[in-house]
Structure formats: structure tokens, C-alpha cells
């Protein structure tokens, strides 16, 4: 594409202004030749951030001034779910608008199926946007010398968000400060690694502690969550996973559990600071008003709920992720959306909607725009997440979840154990209704929803047979 020089721009602008001045009044309609400037799009991804880690929405254990600011200046979805609570599958959805079963990324370190375009490739093919990427990719590797469909400003350091995120943020900030106002609109993905470094912390803090390594933390550690105690029945798969995680292997005491929460909150604060560096750069550039900002995470973190750490299971702390969307004057501000069921597959359709191009997503994904702008529409009444990655040597962790307005249904493929929670009265998922009398109709309804959803899946051609799971 020919580069627009300042001189050429001024010439065109003056010509356009003269034409407007001489044109007859057309009842308030802008002349057809003046195209509305397309919004820039900035997607900021964190890694392994549980939804309840934002001070604006009530978490008192940490300070997240930048996430808070964009909650106030946008819509924050409280019923926001990952498509699959593990890195590569979730990322494949965030960047394609398709479920992991459709992208072929059923586990970590796989590439997206060639038949499914990522959002960078899609925008390059269908728009004038410049697509830029910085940070963790993980499709297949977290660090790569190039990312298909994007100019890669800088990759990530493998697993070291505590060091590499500052470099990623600096690269994004640098881009904003150097770009010309006359450049094409940008689609930037800033993919930060934190608070994923909690995984290194797990590996370096296996052993239980009888006393605090940092004495000054005494009396300052977060309390355990109210659903710390185990609730049964649950799938043996989840029990096996729990038993091989560092918390079980180290036989953590309450002190260690609470110390883990303290460290995790500090990692979220760390990523908030780097998000702030990126957003400050955007604001300094003067492009804030014309940029769709989306902030989310690939999956959550156990947070000691159900005595779990890490991810790859479908309890709320692992399956829910923050999702904040903001664009001044176009999107509602200070909205805490506590009812709309939204998913990682909805981001690409939303980006395409604001960019004015069709979406590569399919029947499952939806543009969030009606919710963001408070337009009347019929929103989805149910949502699915899946687990397909076999982590920590535990075999066949395949599981699916159906979320409806009040209920959440989980079923594991290996043992067929079902869980049903009424989240409207049991947000902590402590009372499994699946085996209780009086809930047969709810169980049947959720199984039916799952079957209907599965029947519409466009399964990736390279998905292994044992990862396809129809007719539960």
C-alpha cells in the first residue's frame, strides 16, 4: 500500500474541506466520500488471571489501578468464561473466534489448524489494518521468532513475565509514541505473561513451611476462601489432578496456602503495572478516543478454591476470566455486567464488528457490540467450555461445562461424573445437585444444550479421535 505522506494528506484534506464547504446541505448526512475513521484495536491479554483479582469489583487483597480505570471507562463482564482453561487452546479461541475443538488446539504447544485464520491473518486479508503482536504466542511455542498474520515487535521470554513483560510493554508504548496519526489503523495484541509466573513459584515452593520466610508478612496474609474445603462428588480426574499438584505433593499447611495467595496477588499487581505502561502510551498518543481496548486473560487460577491451584478444570476460579472492553463515547462506561454469558470466542467477532468487516467466527461466537452499546438484542442463554489438555500426567481429562443463567453443569468423559451447581445461591460450587432428587429436569436440559452445541461444532480435521466427544 502506498504510504500517505504528510504533504499528500494535507493536499487531500484541503480538497475534501473545500468540497464540503461548497456542497449543499444534505439533511445532516455526512457526504458519502468522507469515511468515518476506523477505530484502532488493542487487545491486552494476561496469562492465568482469575476474574476475582480486580480491586474495582471488590477484591480488597490487591491494588489494580489500571484495570480499575478501564472498568470505570468501559464494560466489565462478570460472567466471562474461557473456552478452555489452559494456555494454547484458550489462546487459539481468543485469536480465531472458534472453539479449541475447531482450531485443533486441544492441548498446549499446538498450532492452529491451517484452515482456520487467526485475527491477524483475517485483518490483513480483509482490511487496511496494520496487525502487530508483542509477547507470548504459545501457538505452538510461547516464544517464537515470528507470528503468522502479525508483525512481531518482540516475543516473550519463556515463562519470565516478571522480566519480559516490561520489555513487551515498552515495545507497545514505543509503538504508540512513534506512530504517525496518518498511519493505517492498528490491530495490536499485547500478550503479557503475568500472573503466570505463579507457576515458577509453585515449582520453587513445593515444601510446606513451618514459619514464614518473610516474617513481616505475619498477620498480613489473605484468608482462605470459603470454599477451600472439598465438596463431593466430583470427577476422579479432578481428584487425581489435585493429588499431583505442588500443593498436595508438598502437603501444604494453611500458612502455605495463604502465602500462595499473597504471592499471586502481587503477580496480578505486576501485570496491572505493565498494562498501565501500555495504556499510558496509548493515551499519550492521542488515539485513546478512537481505540477499542479489550483486556482479558486466557484462563484463570485456582485461588485455593476447592484446594486447587493452577488450571485445566472447570471450577469457577479456573474457568472464569476478566473481560473489560472500553472505547470512550462509543461503549458504555462504568458498567459491571453481571448477567451476560460471554466467552473467549466473542472477541474476534467484536473486533471485526468495530472494524466493519465480516467475522471468521461461526454460529457459536457473537459480537459483544450490542451489550457494549446497550442495543436491544437477544443474547445467548447458555455457554460451553471444554477441557481437553492432559496435564501433569493425568490421562484423559476431557470435560465439558454448560453454563446457563443460574446453573452450571460439568461432566467428565472418563468417569462420566456429573456436577450441577445452582450458582445463584451457591457461587462457591459446594453443593452438587446432580445426584439429588428434584434436579432431573435441569440435568436433562443441560445435557440437551450440550448435545445441541456439539452438533454444531465444526471439528478440526486434525483433532485426534479421542479428543472428539459427541453424544455425551
Amino acid at each position: 500500500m502506498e504510504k500517505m505522506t504528510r504533504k499528500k494528506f494535507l493536499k487531500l484534506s484541503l480538497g475534501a474541506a473545500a468540497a464540503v464547504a461548497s456542497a449543499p446541505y444534505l439533511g445532516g448526512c455526512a457526504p458519502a466520500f468522507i469515511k468515518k475513521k476506523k477505530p484502532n484495536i488493542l487487545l491486552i491479554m494476561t496469562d492465568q488471571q482469575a476474574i476475582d483479582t480486580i480491586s474495582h469489583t471488590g477484591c480488597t487483597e490487591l491494588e489494580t489501578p489500571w484495570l480499575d480505570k478501564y472498568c470505570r471507562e468501559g464494560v466489565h463482564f462478570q460472567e466471562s468464561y474461557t473456552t478452555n482453561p489452559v494456555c494454547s487452546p484458550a489462546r487459539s479461541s481468543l485469536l480465531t473466534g472458534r472453539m479449541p475443538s475447531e482450531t485443533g488446539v486441544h492441548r498446549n504447544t499446538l498450532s492452529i489448524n491451517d484452515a482456520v485464520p487467526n485475527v491477524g491473518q483475517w485483518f490483513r486479508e480483509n482490511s487496511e489494518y496494520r496487525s502487530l503482536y508483542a509477547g507470548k504466542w504459545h501457538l505452538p511455542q510461547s516464544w517464537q521468532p515470528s507470528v503468522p498474520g502479525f508483525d512481531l515487535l518482540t516475543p516473550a521470554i519463556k515463562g519470565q513475565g516478571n522480566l519480559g513483560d516490561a520489555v513487551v510493554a515498552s515495545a507497545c508504548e514505543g509503538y504508540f509514541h512513534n506512530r504517525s496519526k496518518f498511519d493505517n489503523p492498528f490491530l495490536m495484541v499485547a500478550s503479557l505473561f503475568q500472573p503466570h509466573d505463579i507457576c515458577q513459584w509453585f515449582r520453587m515452593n513445593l515444601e510446606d513451611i513451618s514459619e514464614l520466610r518473610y516474617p513481616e508478612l505475619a498477620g498480613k496474609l489473605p484468608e482462605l476462601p470459603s470454599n477451600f474445603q472439598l465438596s463431593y462428588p466430583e470427577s476422579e480426574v479432578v481428584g487425581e489432578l489435585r493429588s499431583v499438584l505442588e500443593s498436595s505433593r508438598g502437603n501444604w499447611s494453611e500458612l502455605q496456602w495463604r502465602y500462595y495467595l499473597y504471592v499471586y496477588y502481587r503477580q496480578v499487581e505486576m501485570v496491572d503495572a505493565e498494562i498501565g505502561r501500555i495504556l499510558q502510551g496509548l493515551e499519550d498518543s492521542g488515539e485513546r478516543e478512537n481505540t477499542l481496548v479489550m483486556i482479558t486473560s486466557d484462563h484463570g487460577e485456582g485461588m485455593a478454591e476447592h484446594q486447587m491451584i493452577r488450571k485445566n478444570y472447570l471450577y469457577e476460579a479456573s474457568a472464569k476470566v476478566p473481560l473489560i472492553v472500553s472505547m470512550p463515547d462509543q461503549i458504555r462506561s462504568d458498567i459491571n455486567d453481571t448477567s451476560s454469558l460471554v466467552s473467549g470466542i466473542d472477541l474476534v467477532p467484536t473486533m471485526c464488528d468495530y472494524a466493519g468487516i465480516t467475522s471468521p467466527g461461526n454460529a457459536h461466537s457473537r459480537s459483544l457490540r450490542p451489550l457494549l452499546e446497550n442495543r436491544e438484542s437477544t443474547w445467548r442463554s447458555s455457554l460451553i467450555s471444554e477441557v481437553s489438555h492432559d496435564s501433569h500426567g493425568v490421562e484423559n481429562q476431557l470435560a465439558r461445562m454448560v453454563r446457563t443463567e443460574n446453573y452450571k453443569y460439568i461432566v467428565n468423559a472418563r468417569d462420566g461424573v456429573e456436577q450441577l451447581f445452582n450458582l445463584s445461591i451457591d457461587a462457591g460450587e459446594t453443593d452438587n445437585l446432580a445426584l439429588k432428587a428434584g434436579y432431573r429436569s435441569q440435568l436433562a436440559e443441560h445435557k440437551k444444550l450440550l448435545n445441541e452445541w456439539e452438533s454444531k461444532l465444526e471439528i478440526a480435521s486434525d483433532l485426534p479421535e479421542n479428543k472428539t466427544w459427541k453424544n455425551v
Partner: protein
Amino acid sequence: MDKTGILGSPLGFESLQELQILDQVPRGIKGFNPKGNWSHIYRIWSSYGYWEKNNFDNGWLKIQREVNLSDATQDFRITQLINNFTGRKSDLGVFNLVTAKLKCHLNELATPIQWKLESQFYYEDKSLNLPEIGLIKTGRINNSILSVSTNGKVREQSIDRNVTSNWSLYEAIQRLPLKDSAKLDFTYMEDLVVIKNDHHLSYQGLRSSGINEKEDQLHYFQQLGRGVFPFEYYLDGNRECLMIVTGPRAYILDDSASDIFNKRHPWLKDEISNRIDASEVD
């Protein structure tokens, strides 16, 4: 290395020795005077938490200090190189070089007064046609007002009077009294860019490294605060800061730290020299 699997316990001298990163406690400068002029190079190294894999040299940090007793200030020259990649020999490298000139008070915290910082990216693959992403930041703290200009765009905000930066704190810690009552509360300005509140540094007495044949005792400080892994500082008897550990990352005093990267990426040495020369002219 005999061990495999996860480390199990926090990084320290003993695990770094077992990982073959250290063969002994780093040696400081003979007759080191923390109140004088000095230059330190730290190797920046990190672990993914396994004995046998994914442990990398990520870069190096050089801090040069010059004292100005006449006006009770001190000047620092900072050079920091980060390889934003795995650090493996076979990787194409992307490097972020930060150079900074920083003037600080000669007070307990080495509080920054004014600075100029440049961030530049270098790519091993010269065929990439990427947009400019370098930054120049100048900053000043005056009467609890922090003023920062980024590529000419100025922002101001109020800031706690008790403020320091990570780089100047590495100096200040070498002058703190070595007694249990040595405690500091401050706002932490990371890389002169990011502000983190509620930080607290305290002296925790003497610790043995556990790796020298001859029993050695190192002065040990801890730093806690928002937005960081806890920091642990180890100082020798001359109060020279030999090692800093923060979660999975360690800064290890090592004059040859830059050689690792110069050998792997010979072009990089010239790029860095040219950049430092250019900033000298400014």
C-alpha cells in the same frame, strides 16, 4: 547435574551452585567502599523452576556510581540488556537495551532527582521491517511532583516523598545500617517507569551462603511490596551487594556477564557501544 524435576525450594546460593550457575559466592571488589565511586555488573539469570531445563541467562545490568559530595548527590549510569527470548544459542535474538543517566540525592533511599532514559530494540534478523519502537524518557522529582516526558509528551503526578528506584536502591542498600532496626518504607519506581506502592525493606541479620568451604556470613535484607516477588539482597562484609534474588530471577555480581551475549551475538557489542557513545554526546 544430577538432579531432575522441579527445584522444590526458593532460589539461593545452594540451588544456584547445584544448577552450576555459581561455583562460589561472587567475589566483590577488593577493599570495596560503598560510599565511594564504583561500577557493578550483574548477570541477570532466571529459572523456570526445573533443575534440568529452561534456565536462562536473560541479560545483564551495569551500574556505575559517582558521588558528588559538594551538593550531596550521586550520579548513576545504567546499562541494561534484556534478551527477550529463551536465551538459547540457536535463537534469533531480540534485545532491549536501556541506557540511563540518573542523578539522585545522597540520602538514605538514594531518591531520584532527575534522569534521562533511552530504550532501544535490536533484532538479530535484520530483514524485519518493523516500526520504530524506541523511547526517550526524561524525568524529574521536585517537591513530591513526578514529571516525566516520553518522546516529548509530558505527564505529571504527585508522588510520595519517600521514593526510590530499583537501580538506585541497589546502591542505597549498601549504606544502610546493619542492625535489626534498619527498616525503610518507600514507593518503588521500577526501571524509572512503573510506580509500585507500599514497599518495605528490612535488615534480617547474617546468613550463611552454605556453599563456600570456609564458613561465610552475608548480610541479608528483604524487600516486600506491591507488584513484585519478594526481593532478597545478600551483601558481603564490605557491604557490597553480591546477589539479589526476586522469585525466579537472580542478579549475580559478575564482571563477565556481558561476554555471554557478546560471544553469541558479536554484532550486539558494537551496537551497544555505539548507543552508549551516542548517549555520552547528549
